[in-house]
């Protein structure tokens, strides 16, 4: 079952089946993907709820001089994206969902490490030429789709980026929750106010990833949506690698 993920199906003798689906995502990947979709939505909604209690970055009464289009004096966040109703409700959701969010992430990362699937997912220096070619394709400089394995180089960069983002979010979250007991961690982010800023920037990076991810799936390879639900992939990117 392991090898069938990366390889095209063997020609079958018992009748023509040119589009036999590949097992692309194993159960644990599908489960953690959709759990993360729910938990991350909850973390972002409750996090924004907490943010609205003091919609500024920087010491109280001071300006911090960091770019923030969502500063309270500029743009208020719509109520529909907030979770919890008020500060205490937001805090409750945030500190309840944080654990399943982290545990799901750990399960996924351990799976990547031990199954060897990180090879098909992590962006490495040798993926740079492939990323350039995919960029040329998306910008219509290049007409034919570059050959790819399970993921193309730009997908790898996005999925690797979102892993880094998750680590930054979780660590900056701990830095904000325990700035005295984990003062070394808070210091690593440049102090409490900077940790709050990076935690907040991560929200917009996550949001940008989700938007690009969903558009790319629907516009470029809708078969991959079925694959992350059922595990079976019938799309066009079936080459090995």
């Amino acid at each position, binding site marked *: 079952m392991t090898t069938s993920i990366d390889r095209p199906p063997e020609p079958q003798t018992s009748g023509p089946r040119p589009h036999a689906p590949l097992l692309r995502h194993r159960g644990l990947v599908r489960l953690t993907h*959709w759990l993360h*979709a*729910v938990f*991350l*939505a*909850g973390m972002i*909604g409750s996090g924004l709820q*907490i*943010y609205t*209690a*003091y919609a*500024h970055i*920087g*010491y*109280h*009464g*001071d300006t911090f001089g960091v770019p923030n289009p969502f500063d309270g004096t500029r743009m208020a966040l719509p*109520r*529909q*994206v*907030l*979770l*919890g*109703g*008020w*500060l*205490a*409700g937001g*805090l*409750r*959701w945030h*500190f*309840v969902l944080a*654990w399943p969010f982290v545990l799901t992430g750990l399960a996924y990362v351990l799976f990547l490490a031990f199954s060897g699937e990180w090879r098909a997912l992590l962006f490495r220096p040798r993926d740079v030429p492939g990323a350039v070619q995919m960029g040329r394709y998306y910008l219509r400089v290049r007409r034919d789709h570059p050959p790819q394995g399970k993921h193309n180089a730009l997908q790898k960069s996005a999925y690797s980026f979102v892993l880094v983002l998750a680590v930054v979010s979780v660590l900056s979250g701990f830095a904000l*929750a*325990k*700035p*005295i*007991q*984990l*003062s070394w961690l808070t210091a690593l982010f440049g102090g*409490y*106010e900077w940790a*709050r800023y990076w935690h907040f920037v991560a929200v917009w990076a996550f949001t940008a990833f989700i938007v690009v991810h969903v558009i790319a799936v629907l516009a470029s390879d809708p078969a991959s*949506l*079925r694959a992350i*639900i059922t595990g079976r992939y019938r799309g066009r990117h079936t080459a090995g690698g």
Partner: protein
Amino acid sequence: MGESRRIIARRDFLRVAVPALPAALVACGWNGGKQLQPLFNRIIAANNRLGEGLQAVTHRTADPRQVDRGQMPAYFISDTMPMLVDPSGWRLRVGGLVRQPTSFTLPMLAQLPHIGYTVTHHCVEGWSVVKAWNGVPFTTIAALVEPLPAARYVRFDSFDSDYMNGWDIASAMHPQTILADAFEGRPLAPMHGAPLRLYSPIKLGYKLTKYLTTVTFTAEKPGGYWEDQGYPWFGGL
């Protein structure tokens, strides 16, 4: 035909239902409902225990000499700022599970040894300031009243409407927990909790009861004005 229709229907359902799940979760003030609340309460209680455990292990203190930053806002629950008409009539009553219940007057407290520090104040709302505080270490008061071994919590009451809350005794006995009577080098002003307030850099602002009247050592865990409305009970940093 029937088989493929069912598969398509299931697929359509998943297409709608799966993206709708997070959307439903983000429905404003939803708290998880009656089914999930007991589970949430258990997780929140575990968070409190984890915070206590982490503090017991790391046992860190805040850097006492930071650079003054920002402006300290004033908060109180009453409609108007709580102020003593006659400060000489004010007493801090320390009692409960102690051998020597004591009433302290302001001159009595002024004569006790003080400590001072300039530390970061963290509000649950997310803002911070760095300000200078001065006061009597809580351990000094505890040594005078001699808590009994059964005392596991400390309850702090105020004359700001019904504002009160409770601490675990380990946090109260932290070397930087003080009963503050001075702020930024001046006697504590009414806007910051005069004549006496609880202060510690290891707790969120709502744990730092102002306008103190009573300190009670107890065996039962006290509630709290904000804690009873959903703020984390431990509130440790």
